[in-house]
């Protein structure tokens, strides 16, 4: 009986997961297009901040200024009721929603939030907010109740893979037809809490970060939010429909704060994601990597790509443009990857000059127009976790014809 069940499950067609809308908010701008325009122009939001509220000495980070956020937040109803991060989440979700007819107040719509530290800036000094706002669950309820969504939001808190993993969680729930639409939003802030922590690890670069470069010396932290709205219903447009084809996660089972030396953990996630998507590595046209610019991470990624037979595929890291936005990173970078597929555009991996990993990965050094069909997005993080998802462009032919 059990064997028979298994057969039915594997033989079942996986329900498609359509990406119907998105939004990015970072130091580069408010909205996906604003961010992609800046990336396409080679501009960075990473700057040297001499601000004692972030760190006692100057640090290179990507921050959303109050002068940019305040006018945008004025569109929200009662913005003063929300923390800085909540405002960014609300703006991101609201703008992504506007592009769709999704009913966020429906039982069929779920919100999934990816964040590593949420409102951690309130810890010990909550100001006008109640002290439980530092709880991720309470922060999530603010977002849920703002939009009058009837379902308890899911919060994925899984270090630097939170964003990519949240997309994979959404994929599972949509394939099971638990919901018609899932709004996946990820966000984190640059705070003294995280800056001092990464500094104590000596993981922060004292200049704009240089993923995969010989002279890379660590990360730049960044802040922002990314929102992707996923649906089981095929969008009405005939062109440029992008789907999540597959995804997976894995653990290195090696070290809590260092990546595997062999890349086998990330390779496992990539292999499983490709299997889930029913794809071969030779079908990948582009790789959106995690590329934090720490010596060990980038080296590990190159090993994983070697194992996965993906060394020849054009790849980049977007950390040089927006820094490492922690829980938002996987979603923001996935959105840029989705638009790369839509626009047939590859963006250069900012900060890279001289090859600095053992294996010959194919780093994009200048923007290029190229026919793109499928791409892979990866992330790896503390706790030995890895995640990968596969996106594909559907060539919808005229169904009437």
């Amino acid at each position, binding site marked *: 009986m059990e064997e028979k069940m298994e057969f039915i499950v594997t033989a079942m067609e996986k329900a498609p997961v359509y990406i119907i809308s998105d939004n990015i908010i970072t130091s580069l701008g408010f909205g996906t297009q604003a961010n992609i325009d800046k990336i396409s122009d080679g501009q960075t939001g990473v700057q040297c901040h001499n601000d*004692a509220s972030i760190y006692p000495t100057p640090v290179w980070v990507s921050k959303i200024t109050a002068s940019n956020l305040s006018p945008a937040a004025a569109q929200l109803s009662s913005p003063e009721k929300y923390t800085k991060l909540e405002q960014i989440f609300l703006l991101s979700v609201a703008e992504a929603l506007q592009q769709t007819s999704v009913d966020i107040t429906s039982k069929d719509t779920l919100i999934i939030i990816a964040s590593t530290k949420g409102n951690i800036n309130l810890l010990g000094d909550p100001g006008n907010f109640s002290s439980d706002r530092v709880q991720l669950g309470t922060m999530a309820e603010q977002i849920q109740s703002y939009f009058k969504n009837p379902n308890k939001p899911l919060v994925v808190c899984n270090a630097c893979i939170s964003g990519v993993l949240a997309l994979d969680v959404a994929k599972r729930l949509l394939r099971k037809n638990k919901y018609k639409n899932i709004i996946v939003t990820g966000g984190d802030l640059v705070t003294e809490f995280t800056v001092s922590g990464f500094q104590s690890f000596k993981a922060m670069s004292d200049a704009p970060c240089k993923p995969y470069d010989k002279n890379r010396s660590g990360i730049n932290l960044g802040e922002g939010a990314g929102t992707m709205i996923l649906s089981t219903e095929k969008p009405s447009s005939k062109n440029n429909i992008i789907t999540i084809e597959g995804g997976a996660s894995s653990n290195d089972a090696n070290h809590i704060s260092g990546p595997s030396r062999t890349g086998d953990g990330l390779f496992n996630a990539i292999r499983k994601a490709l299997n889930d998507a029913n794809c071969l590595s030779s079908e990948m046209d582009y790789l959106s990597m995690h590329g934090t610019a720490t010596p060990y991470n980038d080296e590990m990624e190159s090993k994983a790509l070697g194992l996965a037979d993906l060394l020849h595929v054009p790849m980049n890291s977007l950390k040089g443009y927006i820094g490492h936005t922690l829980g938002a990173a996987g979603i923001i970078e996935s959105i840029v990857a989705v638009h790369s597929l839509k626009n047939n555009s590859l963006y250069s991996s900012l900060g890279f000059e001289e090859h600095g990993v053992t294996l010959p990965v194919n780093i994009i050094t200048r923007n290029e127009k190229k026919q793109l069909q499928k791409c892979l997005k990866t992330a790896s993080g*503390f706790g030995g976790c890895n995640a990968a998802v596969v996106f594909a462009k559907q060539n919808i032919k005229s169904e009437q014809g």
Partner: protein
Amino acid sequence: MENTAATYRQCEIKNGEIFLNGKLIFEKKEVPFAKFIKGAYKHFELRYPKFHKMDRLCKLAFVTANLLLEDNQLKEYKPEEIAVVMSNSNSTLHTDSKHANSIKDKENYFPSPAVFVYTLPNIMVGEICIRYKIKGESVFFVSNEYDKEMLTEYSREMIDCGDAKICLCGWVDYTEANYYANLYLVK
């Protein structure tokens, strides 16, 4: 609840007591948590030097997982076939406060990587994966209430679609005021 039949073995730790499959196996009440958990670690002869470096949340998760998985519960599974689905409500609040205290005073600024690494709740998952060589799917959710039904259903679906054969599932939460761990196996 439909999932009871599918749930095998569980370990629960609360108020100075440890229960395995509902049966009380260890008790050390009226001592602070640190003493209690060390007492359990010694009593069950867990012998894992890295235990002493862990924060309280990870110690709680580690002891719970060890007792749940004793007698080689995972021996018939490959590392990639074992998944972990865990959750809590306070994330890493206790260690967050410790890290925050280390950066409060600019004249006496001493953030430590050994503390900071424990400010992510999935580090618990990482510690368990290292100890038991678990390399499969994993996810950490944070929610104000323990939604056992959701976690079990999520694990079950992961197994049904062939992404795992067994899943270590449950809740581990720690604050100075309260703690609760409940881990179980879904297969």
